[in-house]
């Protein structure tokens, strides 16, 4: 076997030989191949991820573990992370998406947390096959989530031709654990057993991570197809229950899920993090197929497996739990003092002998230029702004009915969003609100990934992704506890793609720093490109916040007639990156950059309003701008209510700009005066309309646009047909 065959470069191979002081044998080389792949080593992104803020008052576990952990209160902690399954979902959408859900759930379970919620972020192309792909991906997400019994409580979807052959399937999972529980992949002690639990190992997904997810797609990818694996949510459920029951006994040293690169990655990471070694007995690994080679056993990505580290005198107790749940399980090795990963059979025990600090810790990282972070900030594409002069009634409908804006019910109704009976606000709201049975506090969960904004100005798009989720939490007065980021981009070896990636991360880092929210974990998926066309750099940001009144969320639509409507937003709006622009402008122009200082003040004020102002409703302005936000508030309001808005110039910009930092507030006239008076100077807030009893939505500009409820409901539900 050559280094090229396992996906390594000549430099990397030389580096391995230097570090090892010898030439690795075939098996060893194969293990290096997967662990030093982009997917497992983060070699192109690690130095960029270092820019992200990781610390905060609520952080219990930052990046580096299977999932981040933050503190909800004294008793309850929250584990959460986002993961992508982009390539597998293109090759086999149902199974690819399903195993993506299974994979991220196992990460949460590996932290000793019981999953309570899922959120999905999807991107599809605009051609015909993309529609089938979407249908199948949604089927897959539901097939796993519904069956294992974890509700999908929120999510988002977006479209663009750049995703035609590179759909994105990012899934975030959230779990809860008691505050005193401390289990991770770091506690393995010499003498303890490696207990492999779950599905017997087959030839599934060999090279899934190293090849499929670390190379570009092109004409010649057909032969990679057999590497797709099948998800078994039934076994996933048994494995989840058994693992959590085992963790609960307090008898385990450590837990590590098996994901990309299977046993290789799981064991290498585990012994590396625990600063120990291990002897693995390949003859003891339960296999589904005969005659599997050591290489295949070590690299198989068979799903629904978990590695438990347990001291010999506790083995019986743990095995009893596995037996109750009828899970196959077997001791496949032992933790050793000497930090060496030794893999072999009883006949030939030392077929691979590797120091974990080289295998898991020495992959050379792509250097980042000293001015890398500044460069992203400074690259402001300049283009004449798009400024339409007329105003047409039809535009509003066309934007509301656009694929990006219209109702997501056809997707989220295929997910169980209510199981576990915590969902106070589900997917028919812009963010989810969950009660937590062991706490008076609840969870606010939001996910956004505005790729279109990053198309021309990734720095701005990165900032916007963070600003969006925090804005959503602000409307509930929820305190952000932490963020998880899913980075999706093209081939990092291309200079232009890497520049974009730098700018995207600089944007995320600057925004999360300025808004004071740490990033506790995430995922990076690169090589999302087909035949040389990369996707838009797409940052999917998930946020978890502490909600102090989860049983009474702040409404997102007006409740009565006679309420004032207030608009909050920045002075400079701009149509760059908006849906309106994508529909009516001959070209895309850059998304407006947020003023982070000002944004922080707006968010602080909105958060305090949500917590203290009586009788208000709040909504963020997002895709489709004010027009869509107002329409959706209107549709949600009691049937007889109407809304009348007075629109000032520049009307079109104001109606359709998607700039961050914009909110709608619905308040009673008594509160309005106080609200305006007490708003900080840095915040622009104007009364722009009232709720009425006429049952219609009207915008009064130089002409009046009048929309009936029926027409808006139909457009939102079915799209606009002209």
């Amino acid at each position, binding site marked *: 076997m050559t280094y090229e065959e396992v996906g390594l470069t000549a430099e990397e191979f030389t580096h391995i030989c230097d570090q090892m002081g010898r030439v690795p044998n075939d098996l060893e080389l194969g293990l290096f191949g997967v662990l030093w792949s982009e997917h497992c080593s983060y070699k192109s992104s690690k130095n960029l991820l270092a820019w992200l803020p990781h610390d905060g008052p609520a952080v219990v576990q930052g990046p580096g573990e299977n999932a981040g952990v933050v503190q909800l209160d004294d008793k309850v902690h929250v584990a959460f992370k986002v993961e992508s399954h982009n390539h597998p979902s293109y090759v*086999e959408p149902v*199974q690819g998406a399903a195993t993506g859900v299974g994979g991220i759930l196992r990460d949460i379970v590996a932290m000793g947390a019981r999953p309570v919620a899922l959120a999905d972020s999807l991107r599809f192309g605009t051609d015909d096959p993309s529609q089938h792909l979407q249908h199948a991906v949604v089927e897959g997400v539901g097939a796993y989530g519904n069956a294992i019994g974890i509700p999908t409580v929120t999510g988002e979807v977006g479209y663009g031709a750049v995703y035609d052959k590179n759909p994105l399937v990012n899934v975030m999972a959230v779990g809860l654990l008691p505050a005193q529980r401390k289990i991770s992949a770091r506690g393995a002690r010499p003498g303890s057993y490696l207990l492999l639990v779950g599905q017997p190992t087959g030839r*599934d997904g060999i090279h899934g991570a190293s090849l499929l997810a670390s190379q570009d797609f092109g004409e010649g990818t057909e032969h990679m*197809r057999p590497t*797709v694996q*099948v998800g078994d949510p039934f*076994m996933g459920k048994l494995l989840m229950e058994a693992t959590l029951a085992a963790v609960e006994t307090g008898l385990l040293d450590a837990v590590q899920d098996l994901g990309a690169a299977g046993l290789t990655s799981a064991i290498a990471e585990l012994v590396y993090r625990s600063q120990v070694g291990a002897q693995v007995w390949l003859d003891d690994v339960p296999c589904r*197929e005969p005659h599997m080679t050591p290489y295949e056993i070590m690299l198989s990505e068979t799903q629904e497996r978990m590695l438990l580290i347990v001291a010999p005198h506790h083995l019986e107790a743990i095995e009893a739990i596995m037996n109750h749940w009828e899970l196959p399980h077997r001791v496949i090795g032992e933790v050793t003092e000497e930090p060496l990963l030794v893999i072999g059979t009883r006949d030939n025990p030392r077929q691979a002998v590797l120091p974990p600090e080289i295998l898991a810790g020495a992959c050379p990282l792509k250097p980042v230029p000293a001015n890398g972070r500044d460069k992203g900030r400074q690259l402001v594409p300049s283009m004449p702004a798009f400024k339409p002069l007329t105003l047409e009634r039809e535009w509003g409908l066309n934007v509301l009915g656009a694929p990006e804006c219209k109702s997501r019910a056809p997707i989220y109704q295929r997910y169980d969003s209510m199981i576990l009976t915590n969902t106070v606000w589900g997917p028919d709201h812009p963010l989810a609100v969950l009660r937590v049975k062991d706490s008076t506090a609840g969870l606010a969960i939001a996910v956004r990934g505005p790729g279109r904004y990053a198309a021309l100005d990734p720095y701005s798009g990165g900032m916007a992704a963070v600003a969006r989720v925090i804005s959503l939490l602000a409307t509930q007065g929820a305190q952000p506890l932490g963020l998880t980021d899913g980075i999706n981009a093209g081939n990092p070896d291309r200079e232009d793609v890497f520049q974009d990636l730098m700018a995207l991360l600089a944007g995320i880092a600057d925004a999360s720093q300025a808004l004071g929210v740490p990033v506790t974990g995430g995922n990076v998926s690169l090589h999302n490109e087909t035949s040389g066309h990369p996707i838009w750099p797409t940052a999917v940001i998930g946020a978890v916040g502490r909600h102090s009144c989860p049983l009474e969320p702040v409404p997102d639509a007006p409740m009565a007639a006679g309420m004032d409507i207030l608009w909050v937003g920045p002075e400079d709006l701009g149509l760059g990156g908006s849906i309106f622009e994508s529909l009516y402008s001959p070209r895309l122009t850059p998304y407006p950059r947020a003023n982070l200082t000002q944004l922080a003040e707006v968010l602080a004020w909105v958060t305090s309003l949500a917590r203290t102002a009586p009788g208000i409703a709040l909504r963020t302005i997002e895709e489709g701008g004010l027009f869509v936000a107002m329409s959706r508030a209107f549709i949600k309001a009691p049937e007889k209510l109407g809304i009348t808005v007075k629109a000032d110039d520049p009307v079109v910009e104001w109606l359709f700009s998607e700039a961050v930092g914009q909110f709608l507030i619905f308040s009673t006239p008594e509160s309005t005066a106080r609200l305006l008076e007490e708003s900080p100077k840095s915040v622009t807030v104007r009364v722009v309309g009232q709720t009425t009893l006429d049952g219609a939505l009207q915008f009064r500009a130089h002409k009046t646009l009048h929309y009936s409820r029926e027409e808006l409901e139909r457009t939102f539900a079915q799209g606009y047909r002209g």
Partner: protein
Amino acid sequence: MTFDLIVNVAWKEEILDPAGQSTTKVLQQMGYAVDNVRIGKQIRLQVEAQDQDRALEAGREMAKRLLANPVMETYTVQVVEA
């Protein structure tokens, strides 16, 4: 002319079949001496074609393009004699 086709779709041997696995287990619990239950699809359809060969060819094409996923499945196509 209308032809009745049967397309049998089965998991490739190395592909995990969780439904088959669980069914095996339950049949064994019920006392049957069975093993290796694999659950595939049997698809029946009617196709308009000039002759049997063309009907078969259309069937194979549909199987390849839609009815089976070559990533994980194999298929056979046959014409049902009237």
